[in-house]
C-alpha cells in the first residue's frame, strides 16, 4: 500500500487539476489547474525512476564502494531527464498562458470566462 501512495497522489493531482480547468471560471485558476496536472505527471515520471536499493546516478557524490564495485546499482537517469525537460517546457507554456491572460484582461477588463465569449459557435 505504502508503495502505491505516490501513484494515488498522481491520479488525485491530475483529477484536481482537471476539475479546476473544467469548473473554475477564473482564467488564472484554469492556469493553476494546468500546472497541477503538470506537477502530477512530473511526479509520476519521478516515481517511475525510483528503484528500491538503487543509488542516485551522480558519480561524484556516490558512495565510493558503489562507484568502484557496483556501478550497476545506480538507477538509470532517463525518467529524471524526462522530468527536467518536461519542467522546462512547462515553464514556457505557463509564461505564455499568463502573458495571454494579461492581454485578455486589457481587452475585456475581466478574467471571468463567462464574460469572455465573443467567439461563439
Amino acid at each position, binding site marked *: 500500500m505504502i508503495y502505491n501512495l505516490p501513484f494515488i497522489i498522481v491520479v488525485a493531482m*491530475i483529477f484536481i487539476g*482537471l476539475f479546476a*480547468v473544467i469548473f473554475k471560471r477564473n*482564467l488564472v485558476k*484554469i492556469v493553476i489547474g*494546468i500546472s497541477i*496536472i*503538470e506537477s502530477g*505527471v512530473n511526479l*509520476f*515520471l519521478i516515481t*517511475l525512476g525510483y528503484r528500491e536499493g538503487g543509488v542516485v546516478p551522480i558519480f561524484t557524490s556516490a558512495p565510493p564502494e558503489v562507484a568502484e564495485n557496483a*556501478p*550497476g546499482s545506480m538507477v*538509470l537517469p*532517463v*525518467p529524471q531527464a*524526462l522530468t527536467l*525537460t*518536461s519542467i522546462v*517546457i512547462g515553464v*514556457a*507554456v505557463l509564461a*505564455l*498562458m499568463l502573458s*495571454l*491572460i494579461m*492581454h*485578455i484582461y486589457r*481587452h*475585456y477588463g475581466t478574467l471571468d470566462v463567462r464574460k*469572455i*465569449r*465573443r*467567439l461563439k*459557435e
Partner: protein
Amino acid sequence: MNWFEIITMHSPALIVAVPLLTGFLTPLVSRINSTVRNLFVIIMLSITGFLIALLGYDVLTNGIRTYVFGGGNTVVTLPSGLMFHVRIIFEVDVMNVFMIFITIILAIIGIVYSFSFMKKEDGLDKYYTIVLLLITSTLGMELTGDLFNFFVFLEISCITSCALIAFWVHKGEALEAAFKYIVVSSIGALFFLFALGLLYAQYNALNMATIANSIQFSIIDQAALILIIAALAMKAGLVPMHMWLPDSYGEAPPSITFILIAATQASLYGAFRVLFTLYGNVFNSVNLASLSLVLTTNTMGWIIITLAIITILVGVFMALIQTDFKRLIAFAAVAEIGYIFLGIGVRLASKYVQYTGGSATGIAFTEYSSIALNGSIFHIINDCLDIGLLFLVAGAIYYATKETSLDKMGGLARNLKYTTIFFVIGLLAVSGMPPFNGFASKLMLYESTFQLNPIIAIIAVLASIMLLAVFVKVFYSVFMGPEQPKFKEVKEVPKTMLIAMGAIVVIIIIFGLFPNLVINNLVAPAANALTNYTTYISKVIPGVI
C-alpha cells in the same frame, strides 16, 4: 564517401536543424532590411526542401533510414552487461517522407504568401522566427522515432502555434482563440506524456520500434493507447474535441492558418503511426489465434467511424450557419478531418471482416481495407491543399477589402478575377468534384466504406454534397451579385500572393488528373511502410523476424 552521401546520411538531422537555426538568425538578418530577410528565409527553406528531396529519393530507393544521435545505434551497454535503448533516434520511412513533403510544400507556399500579406504589420522579424520554429516542430514530429522526442516537438508546436494565433494581438478574439488553443493542447500534450510514462514503465524504452517490438496490449497498454489517441485526435480536431479549431483557424492570419494545417496534420500522422506501427501487432492482427485482438480492432474501428461521422456532420452543419468567411472554411476543415478518420476506422473495421467473414469475403476485404488506408493517407495531402487554398483566398479577399463577414461582401468577381478562379477550383476540389484531387481520395473512401456499410457511405457522400452547397452559397454571396460602390476601388492582390495560390492550384490539378501517379509512387508505399511494422522494428533491433 563523397559529400553527396554525407549530406544524405545526415539529412534527417539537417532537415530539423536548418529551419531551427534560420529561425533564430532571422532577427539578426532583418537588421539589414526586409528584402534581405525575406530572401534569407525563402532560400533556407528551399535548402530544407532540397534536403527533403534527397532524403525522400534515398528512402524510396533504399528503404528505411535511421539516424541515431550520439552513436551508432540506440543501445547503451552498461559494464554489467545490461542494455538500454536510450539514444534518440530519427527513423524515416515512406510515410514520414510523405508527411515532410506535404509540410515543406505548405511551408514554402505559406512563406511566399506572407511576403505581401504581412507586409504592413509590425514585428515581422519575430513573426518569421516563430513561423520557422513551427515548421521545425512539425518536421520534427514527422521525422522522429522516439516518443518523448515527439512530445517535445508537440509542445514546441503548441507554444509556437499559440503565439501565432495571437499574432493580431490588438483583437480580443484572437487572444481568446489562442488561450483556448493553448489550454486544450497543453492538457492534450500532458496526457500524451502520462501515456508515454505508462509505456516507459512497462518496456523500459522510449523509442517506438523497441516498444512496438515488445508490446503486450495489457490493460496498461490499452489505457496508454486511449490517452495517446485522445490527445492526438484533440490536436487534429476530431469531434468532440474540435471546439478550438474553428476559433484558431478563423482568428489567425490566413498565412498562419495555412501552416497551422500542416501542424495539425502532423498530429494526425502521430495517430496513424501509433495505431499502425506502435500497436502494429494489435491493429494489423496477423495471427488469428488471438481473437480478442481481432475483436479489439473491430471495436476501435467502429468507435473511430462513429466519431468520424459525427465530425463530418458537425463540420458541415456548422459551416452552413456561419457568417464569417474564415470560420466557415474552418468548419469545412473539421469535416475534412472527419473523412480522414473515417478512412482509419474503415480500415480497422474491415480488418475484422477480413478475418471473420469467410474466405471469399476475407480476400475482398483485404483489398478494401488497403483502399481505405490509401484513401485516408491520400486525403491528408488533398485536405491540406484544398482547405489551404480556400484559406488563402479568404486571406486575399481580406487583404483587398478588409472584410471577413459574408453579409457585407458581394460582386467581387469583377475586381478579383484570378482570386475568383482560384476559389472556384478550391470549392470544387474540397467538395470532391471530378477533375480535381478531392474526388480521387474521396472516391477511394466511399468505395471502401460502401463495402463495409452502405449507410455510412451514403452519409459521407451527402455531407460532401452539402459542403458543395455551402461553398456555392459563399461563391454567390462573395463573388456574384450587383457591383457594390464601396468595393469599386478594390484591386487584384499582389503578385506573390497570386503565385502562392497559383502554385497550389497547379498541384491540385496535377493530382486530380493523374491520381495514380501519386497513389502508386507515394501513397501506397507510405501505407505499406505504415503497416509493415516488422520492417520498422527490425531496422532498430536487428534480428527480429
